[in-house]
């Protein structure tokens, strides 16, 4: 029977997790290779991705959120569906050591994120000149670099490590911190003097997915 995978956790993870998952299916917990896996089973796997898909994504997220509130998890991307329990067990047998290593290493860590973008659309041409456009764009990027430096400085007391990814609409800053430092981080963000003309969205805590590569290949 097809199995929808939510996440992997240490075997010490709660026996009583979320009861219902995507499309109201029961959430089951199995243990294999010293790991706990949370999943749903349904003979009709199409139901999990049937429109409106947004609802399925939110239901999936709620399962992860409830578990992550108390333990470290390695979430699967939605939708990760395997043909059955045997296939899942085979996967765990090949990947369990890596998963255990990651869960142990990031056991007490969480991830926070800040998306910084100019209020004005990045690179929006305000003049007809291509040269002016490039100048404007470079100025915006330089400004974002300065902002990231300031952000990292302000958040530094709470953050173990951080990294930045540049996006078309701005920059995305990822911080890894101890689970009990989230309030300290948010308090620091409230003191942050963000330069005029920019908006920053702070989110988290999330599972620490940005600081390791989970693709077993």
């Amino acid at each position, binding site marked *: 029977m*097809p199995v929808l*995978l939510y996440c992997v956790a240490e075997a010490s993870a709660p026996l009583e997790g979320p009861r219902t998952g995507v499309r109201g299916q029961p959430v089951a917990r199995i243990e294999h290779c010293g790991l706990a896996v949370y999943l749903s089973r349904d003979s009709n796997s199409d139901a999990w991705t049937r429109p409106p898909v947004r609802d399925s994504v939110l239901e999936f997220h709620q399962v992860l959120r409830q578990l992550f509130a108390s333990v470290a998890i390695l979430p699967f991307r939605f939708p990760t569906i395997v043909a059955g329990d045997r296939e899942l067990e085979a996967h765990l047998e090949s990947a369990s050591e890596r998963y255990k290593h990651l869960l142990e290493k990031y056991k007490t860590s969480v991830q926070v994120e800040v998306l910084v973008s100019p209020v004005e659309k990045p690179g929006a041409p305000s003049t007809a000149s291509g040269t002016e456009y490039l100048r404007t764009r470079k100025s915006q990027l330089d400004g974002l670099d300065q902002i990231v430096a300031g952000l990292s400085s302000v958040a530094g007391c709470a953050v173990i490590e951080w990294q930045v990814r540049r996006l078309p609409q701005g920059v995305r800053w990822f911080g890894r911190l101890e689970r009990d430092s989230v309030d300290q981080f948010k308090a620091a963000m409230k003191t942050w003097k963000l*330069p005029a003309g920019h908006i920053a969205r702070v989110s988290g805590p999330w599972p620490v997915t940005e600081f390791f590569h989970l693709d077993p290949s």
Partner: protein
Amino acid sequence: MSTGSGAVVFTDQSGGDQLSLVDILDHVLNQGIMIRGNLVISLAGVDLVYVGLDMILTSIETAMRHMNPPAPLAKK
């Protein structure tokens, strides 16, 4: 560079508004373990998956439009 008047917004993870929905979609769809190979079965053929993802991407684009606050109204 002037400082101090940019907007810092804290989003929750309820999915109840467009901003938090964007964050959730990004995390659920783009971050986490990805199993490759024969373990992943197709859902009624690959087409259905692609249809689903296209719909999600459309929602993201819609949500992203709401991320940028509207330009201030000109004073008359």
